[in-house]
Structures are given as C-alpha cells and as structure tokens.
C-alpha cells in the first residue's frame, strides 16, 4: 500500500506539469505510431532535446508515455489501412485489416485498445510488485553476474535479429568496437582518437541511436522518393469496446499475450516487437481459435497487442533494477538517467524513492490515457496521414540535429550522428541489421566494465565466472542460446538445400 500512497503523492507533487507532459507524451506516442517512417523509439529519441531542461522525473514521465502509447498507435493504421505503423504491429495487421474489410473495423479497433490496456496493466503490476524484490536479490550480484547478464543480452540480440546470423554478429562487434573509442574508464587511456578531438571525447551511444534510427530512415525515404501511394482513408472511423461475454471468450488469448509480453521482455535485448511476434506464434500453436488466425480473428489482434504493451514494463525492470537497457527505447531512458547523474541499479529503490514512485504513477496513468485517447483520437490521428511524408522527414532531421547537438552542446555529436545516419543507410542496403550495432554500442562498454572489474578483483582468474553459481547459470544459458543459433542456422541451411535439390531434380525428369 505504501507504493500506492507514494505514487499518489508523486502525482500531486508533479502538479499540472505532470499531466501536461504525460498527456502530451501519449499524444506524441500515438502520432509516431500512426505516421509512416516514425517508430516509437524514434519518438522517444526525438523528444530527448525537449527534456534537457526538465528534471529527471518529468523527462521520464513524458518519455514513458511516448513509449507506451507508441506500442499501440500503429495498430490504428494496421487495422484501418493495412499498413503496420510499427514493427510490433506486423502480426496483427492481417487479422485486423481483414476484420475491417468485413465491416468490423470498430470491433477490431476496440480489441486493440482493450488488449493494449490489459497488457499494459499486467506489465505494470509485474513492474511494481516484482522489481523491488528483484532489486533485493540484485544487491548480491557482483560484477561477474552483471557481466553474464549483459553477455546474455548481447547474445539474445543475435538470436532475435532474424536475418543472417553472421551479419548480425558483424554489426554487434562493430558496435562494441565503436564504443571503445575515447577515454577508457578503468585505465584512463585514450583509445582510437587518431589525434582528433572529435574522437577523443568518445562516441556517445545516443548520437549513434539518433543517427541510425532517425536520420537513416529520413535518408532512406528521401532516396525512395517517398514512394508509396497515400492510403485511401476510410469514410468512418469508430471504436467499439467489446462486451464482457466477448472478453470472456477471448480470455485465453489475452492471458497468453500478456504473459508472453512480460516474460519475453524480461530477457535483456528483447523488446515489444519480439514480444509481439512470439505472442502471435504462441497463439498460433496453443490458442483455442488458432485455426482462425490470419482470417480476421480478434485473437490475432489481442495476443500481439497485449504482448507489445506489456513488454514496456519488462524493459523498465531491466533498466531500473540492473541499469541495463532492455530495448532501444529504454536505452534512451538510460540516457536521461545519466544526464541527470542518476545511476539506475538495485539501490535506486532506496536512494530515489520519489523518482520510482513518479515512474510507476506515470506508467499506469499513461496506459489509461492511451486507452481513452486512442479511442477518441483515432479519427484525427488517421487524418494526419494526409500530411505528405516529406514534411515529417524534414522535421525528423531537424529534431535529430538538436537531439545530437544538445547531448554535449557540441557539433561533434552532430557529425557523429550524421555519419551514422549515412552508415545505417548502407548497412540496411547490405542486409546488415542495425539493432545489434546499437545494442553492441550500448551494452559493449557495460560488458567491458564488468569483465575488467571482475578480472582485476580476481587476479585475472577467468574461472570465477563459472565458480559463482548465478554467473555460471547465466553463462550456461548464453552458451545454450549460441548452440540453438548454430543449430537453427545449420538446420535451415540443410532444409533449404534439400528443398532446392528435390525441386531441381524434379524439373530435370
């Protein structure tokens, strides 16, 4: 009950600005979900410069509101226009739009809103009631355990990259190498500066994030000449919330989606997109209505949407308890903590009680505001698609410039951001995924710090990683994930070769 009282006090203390920032954040989150070429990670990144003059609490409330709402906003275009607004909306698009084509758009929108609400609440409950006990356990973690967790996170990024594992590995190591540029924290040595000030100051991972997520997208769309016809807007946009009996009939899908979102995002490196796809896959395997999936089934909306919104809390648990970002968006939130000289980690629950209460309050209120605004504002949001994309791209570049510049009030970061924007464009063209690059740049320094600290404390005895029980377990899981990756790659290669050979043989007879 204490936490509820603390949250209430945090809302009161926040005053009118708390509500303005929260509602504004939800609006921006819904908008970035709807607009093409924008993702909620970009949304959180692009409002970063606006948060520099705010306190940590205010900044985090606004960014979390954008994050949460962004996981739902894209469902509007997915259902109404057959265009997934965000990567996490891809699984629900077919079922959602099929329902819309059959005249059940209002029902589909209602299911998406409800799933986002319940998914968000489930995740929030886990965050509030689980994070503090987890923090108590995390207090006993040493640098060896933290290294093992970060390593698991880096491996998970590979496992979930989808495309060529080798290309993902190359991106990951490139990110880790880039993060070593500049002053080394432990030995005080300057690395890879090549005599230039720009590199001596190091490469801030936020500049990389802004470059590859925001600028790369703007460059890509300009290079594609903003191709793609403007979608035909539906005449009527309405949302109908399903009744209790309908909810009861889909309770299984809702529960599976919420559980999947929460547990998938509990692993470092897996965000809402992964949660959404996994939840859809689970529903396809085990759902009562699995045969209906892909043909206009509400379960095809409920499972991925509830998982997407639930995953926000999972990412926040990682960030708050371990100080390890669980997703791209939470990496930006980490930046806010650092800019305000606050270190997330298990002690944050004792040292920053008011901030924690503010975050918890901001999250749950954002979820409800997202639900209400998503229903009421669906129509004007969709009408925003009439704005030509080039205007959006131009302002994305504008925000990206300031977002990078304001990090250290330095034009160097703008150049770094620009370089990564161009690099990101070529990486995508070459089939190299960007997520491993970014997370390599974020988690690489953490991995180095924990690894080097462990080795210094234990006189370079590397076996300590295996003699400490928790570290050993986590490293074993990491090895298992690697083994699974290798098995999957070999199996897919053999299967593909078998299919090709049989077809080639068939065509010759």
């Amino acid at each position: 009950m204490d936490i509820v009282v603390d949250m209430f006090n945090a809302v009161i203390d926040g005053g009118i600005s708390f509500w303005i920032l929260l509602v504004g954040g939800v609006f921006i989150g819904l908008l970035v979900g709807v607009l093409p070429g924008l993702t909620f990670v970009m949304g959180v990144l692009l409002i970063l410069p606006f948060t520099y003059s705010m306190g940590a609490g205010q900044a985090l409330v606004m960014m979390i509101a954008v994050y949460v709402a962004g996981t739902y906003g894209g469902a509007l275009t997915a259902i109404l226009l057959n265009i997934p607004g965000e990567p996490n909306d891809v699984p629900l698009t077919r079922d959602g739009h099929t329902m819309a084509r059959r005249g059940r758009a209002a029902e589909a929108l209602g299911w998406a809103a409800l799933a986002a609400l319940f998914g968000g609440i489930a995740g929030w409950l886990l965050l509030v009631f689980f994070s503090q006990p987890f923090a108590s356990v995390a207090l006993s973690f040493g640098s060896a355990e933290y290294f093992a967790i970060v390593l698991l996170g880096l491996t998970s990024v590979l496992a979930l990259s989808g495309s060529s594992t080798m290309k993902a590995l190359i991106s990951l190591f490139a990110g880790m190498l880039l993060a070593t540029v500049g002053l080394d924290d432990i030995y005080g040595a300057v690395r890879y500066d090549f005599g230039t000030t720009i590199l001596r100051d190091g490469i801030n991972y936020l500049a990389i994030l802004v470059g590859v997520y925001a600028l790369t997208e703007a460059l890509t769309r300009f290079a594609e000449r903003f191709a793609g016809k403007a979608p035909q807007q539906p005449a009527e946009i309405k949302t109908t919330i399903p009744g209790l009996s309908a909810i009861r009939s889909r309770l299984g899908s809702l529960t599976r989606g919420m559980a999947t979102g929460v547990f998938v995002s509990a692993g470092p490196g897996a965000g809402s997109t992964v949660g959404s796809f996994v939840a859809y896959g689970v529903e396809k395997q085990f759902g009562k209505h699995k045969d209906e999936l892909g043909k206009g089934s509400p379960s095809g909306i409920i499972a991925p949407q509830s998982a997407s919104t639930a995953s926000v809390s999972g990412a926040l648990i990682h960030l708050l308890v371990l100080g390890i970002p669980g997703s791209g968006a939470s990496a930006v939130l980490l930046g806010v903590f650092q800019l305000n000289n606050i270190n997330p980690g298990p002690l944050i629950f004792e040292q920053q009680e008011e901030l924690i209460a503010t975050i918890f309050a901001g999250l749950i209120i954002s979820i409800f505001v997202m639900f209400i605004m998503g229903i009421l504002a669906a129509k004007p949001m969709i009408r925003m698609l009439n704005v030509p994309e080039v205007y959006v791209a131009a302002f994305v570049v504008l925000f990206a410039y300031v977002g990078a510049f304001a990090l250290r009030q330095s034009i160097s970061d703008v150049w770094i951001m620009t370089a990564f924007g161009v690099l990101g464009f070529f990486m995508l063209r070459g089939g190299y995924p960007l997520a491993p690059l970014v997370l390599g740049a974020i988690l690489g320094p953490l991995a180095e710090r924990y690894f080097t600290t462990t080795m210094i404390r234990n006189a370079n005895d590397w076996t300590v990683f295996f003699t400490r029980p928790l570290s050993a377990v986590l490293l074993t899981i990491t090895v298992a994930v690697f083994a699974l990756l290798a098995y999957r790659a070999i199996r897919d290669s053999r299967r593909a070769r078998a299919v090709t050979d049989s077809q080639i043989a068939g065509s010759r007879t």
Partner: protein
Amino acid sequence: MPREVVTGGETTDPSTGAGEPETRAPEPSVEVIERQTSPAGLAKELLPEIGILLVAAYLFYVAGDFDYRERPGQLGPQFWPRMAAVGLGVAVLVRIAQTIRDRNRPVVRVKSEFDEYEQSEAEVHWPSFGLAAGLVVGYAASTMFVGYMFSTVLFLGLFIWLGGQRRWYVTLVAAVGGLLFTYIFVGVVYVSVPTGVGIFDTITVAVYRLLGIQ
C-alpha cells in the same frame, strides 16, 4: 528471376489407398533465386566484407599503441578492443567463406506470412540519396557559419522542395517551422545552438531579442 517453389503436404501413400492425402504438416513455402556469380561479381559482393576485415586488422594493430600506465598482471585498455576486433574479423571471415561457398548455389528463402508487410518494394534512387545526404551534411556544416536559425529555415525549404513538394507555401512552412523550433529549442529548452559568425550572428541575436529570448 525468382522461381517460387511451394511444397505442400499431400502425397499418395499406397497403404492408405490411391489419392488419400497423408496427414503431415505442410512445409513452408520457399522462394528460390537461381544465380551464377562471376569472379568479378563475387569480388564486388565481397568488397564491403574485405574492407571491414582490413579495418578490424588495423584496429587490432593500433590497439597495441595505447598510451597508459602499465601495471603488472592487468589486462590493459587494449584487451577489450582487441577481443572485439578479433570477433569482428572472425565473423567477417566466416561470412566471406559462406559467400564463396554459396556463390553458385540458388538462394533459398523461406517465405513468411508477414512478407507483404515487412519487405519494402520501393527502389532506391541513388541521385536522390546523394541529394539527401548532401542536404543533411550541408545543414550540419552551415550551422557553424550562418547559425542554426538560418540553416534550419534553408534546410527545411530545400529538403521539402527537393523532396517533391512544389507548393507556394513551402517557403512559409520552412520559415515558420525554423523560427518556431529555434524559439522552442533556444528559449524554452535552453539548448545553445550555434548563432553563426559575423552578420549572421548579429541578425540571429537580434531575432532572439525580438522573440523574447535572452
């Protein structure tokens, strides 16, 4: 030319009777792309990977020159970058080996039910990319000389105009957008963006005063 190969789940099993489908989970649909890569084509394909390999090797070598106060028994600041460089090098070598091994093999891709949403069909127009990259680089460079405010107005106008919006109000959008966000970032958020040099600095500061920015 990609050739679609669809594998289905129906076979004729003599023990069950002719024409009766065997119940087996359908295999995923795959796309097969035949290819024959010439040595020149292979070299072109491997160029980025070879570049990355050379960079990794160079960075591994340069790491030996880091200047620090060496203490016996410690790994040193070069350890982690070298581990990352080795990892990068090994991954690139495996990738090169895979590419050479598969150069004349058809590319087989398992189709996903979400392909229509995940695959972009738009083609890249390289001159447009060059233009966009030039505008972005020009924007960053010009802020140091003409200041953020002027650069932003100019950038917005050019980007939107050259991006295909040939409307009379583009100039208005650029001017209003540039001034508005200059006010927000400088006056509200307190980001000290560049004001330029010489006459540009003078005019920018005058505009700040007019907008009430101290």
